[in-house]
């Protein structure tokens, strides 16, 4: 008994240390975001009274609200798009009989090895180049295999001044397809059969049976993808050229990179603001995530 108590004490010590290490930087940032210019460079860890001042500076003077708005729009669209598209794709792969299924599955799953980052140079040209002036011009490029494949990318989407540049390329998700396939395979056969007997078509089946059974997987995927998209840095840093379209991860850094000496209190409040939305999503979807993950692990 005594030994067990001692063991528990050790566990507490270990966990406390870990918690302090993990939380300190964020708590530190939080405290510093409340201090004024004079305090912020001092080692003082007293909570100051300048939080609203710093917040106001970061949010309005440094236009953080524009970046936040953009990040929010982008994350929402991409998350929804990924869920819907990969749900449909997984549905077709699991519940339909057709030839070439394996090839399509491999085609999708291989993209796990192709993160945007490694093809960023090609994607950059595709997104940034001017669209063709006429359909004819475009067709003479697309339908000429030599030009299309071996010449530099001639026409693109001309999107580097819109949010589309950070939304559309990310709408498909191999991870999502994979998770949904696993989940669908765990749906009992009997349910599928009964719906067949009722004479429900695919659409009815999706809405009446599959979606209600998939909330946890959807929640898990939503959490992973929202956090992923919200935290994206490299691609927006490279492609977005207008402040009006910049995302918060890159925009936040602008508070550091401007001409005056760094106002660390404002920077820290920017960092804290940028953390809040994914934290809210995390809190909301944590249970779904745990269950969705457990479900796929049961298999």
């Amino acid at each position, binding site marked *: 008994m005594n030994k067990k108590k001692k063991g528990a004490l050790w566990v507490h010590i270990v966990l406390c240390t870990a918690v302090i290490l993990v939380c300190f930087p964020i708590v530190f940032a939080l405290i510093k975001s409340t201090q004024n210019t004079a305090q912020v460079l001092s080692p003082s860890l007293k909570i100051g009274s300048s939080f609203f001042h710093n917040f106001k500076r970061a949010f309005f003077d440094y236009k953080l609200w524009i970046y936040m708005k953009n990040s929010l729009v982008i994350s929402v669209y991409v998350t929804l798009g990924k869920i819907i598209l990969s749900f449909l*794709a997984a549905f077709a792969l699991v519940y339909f009989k057709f030839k070439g299924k394996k090839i399509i599955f491999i*085609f999708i799953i291989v993209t796990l090895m192709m993160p945007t980052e490694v093809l960023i140079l090609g994607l950059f040209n595709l997104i940034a180049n001017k669209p063709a002036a006429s359909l004819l011009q475009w067709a003479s490029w697309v339908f000429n295999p030599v030009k299309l494949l071996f010449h530099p990318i001639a026409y693109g989407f001309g999107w580097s001044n819109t949010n589309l540049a950070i939304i559309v390329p990310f709408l498909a998700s191999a991870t999502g397809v994979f998770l949904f396939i696993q989940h669908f395979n765990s749906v009992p056969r009997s349910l599928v059969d009964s719906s067949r007997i009722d004479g429900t078509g695919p659409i009815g089946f999706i809405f009446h049976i599959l979606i209600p059974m998939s909330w946890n997987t959807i929640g898990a995927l939503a959490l992973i993808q929202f956090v992923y998209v919200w935290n994206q*840095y*490299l691609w927006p840093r490279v492609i977005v050229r207008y402040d009006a379209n910049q995302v918060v991860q890159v925009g936040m850094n602008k508070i*550091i990179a401007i001409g005056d000496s760094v106002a660390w209190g404002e920077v820290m409040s920017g960092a804290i603001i940028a953390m809040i939305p994914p934290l809210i999503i995390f809190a909301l979807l944590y249970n779904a995530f*745990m269950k969705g993950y457990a479900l796929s692990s049961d298999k």
Partner: protein
Amino acid sequence: MNIFDQGENAVFRGTWKAVLFLLPTILILIVFLYFPAWHSLVMSFFRNNLFLGTHTFIGLGNYRNLFTGPLAPAFLQSLTQTLLISLLIVFIGISASIFLAIQANKKIKGGTVYRMLLIWPFALSPAVAGTIFLFIFNPEVGIMNTLLDFLFSVKPRWLDSPLLALTLVVFAAVWKYLGYNIVFYLAALQNIPTEPLEAADIDGAGAWRKFFNVLYPLLSPTTFFLVFTNISYAFFETFGLIDILTTGGPVGPPTVLDKTGITTTLMYKVFQDGFGGSSNMGFAAAESVILTIMVGVVAYFQFSSMGKGIHYQG
């Protein structure tokens, strides 16, 4: 891949309907992944300057520059560093999180509180992590050095002494990803049947033996999944952290790793060469092709080990 074992689920017919459901995903993948990936490859055979808009076919010229001549040492160094940094991040990150997850999963008072406090930084971004660390570890005005100066009268040069900068980047990267790893381990642990552990307890197995013989095998599917995600995190997502914290610097120890910044990962170098300076995109494309091959090798091992009985459960 046993994914379609339950093929009996395939109850609907009509190829065109299936194609309709698959079309959006496939179109996006072709246009925004396969096509640009192919063109990144094509670009690597060209001399291609972003500012000048030039395109000249130079065959393997860019690849030759990667491996011989004055530009090669910097590339080879960043290749080595990428592997080293990834190895450290994966090894430290996975071991720390497996250890902490097991501790936090124990039935102790306040277990839930510990669990929440350990995983909430899940949502942190590399850019935020970089920003906070930049402030804490600023050599002159950061709190870390103020503290160390006060206690021990030392002021380590966190951002420009190579070893410290490397350690700092690895530490920050591991810290940022700890929440993510722990979440997955906790989820896995909570689904582990308790019987094997109880059986081991009855056997009187020691903690280490219990871990390696019972727990570790049960967690190995999660570990495999996390090793892959951690590697791809170390390769790519650390970019934001590095860009803000060290901008790829400082240059490494003289004569050993002094051809480029010690925290210049391959991804960072692709960015520097392709979009920085005078923007030699062809050269950067060749680097990104090498990076793709590295990811491919990692993924190959991942998938082939999945085929060999440890099946994918993430």
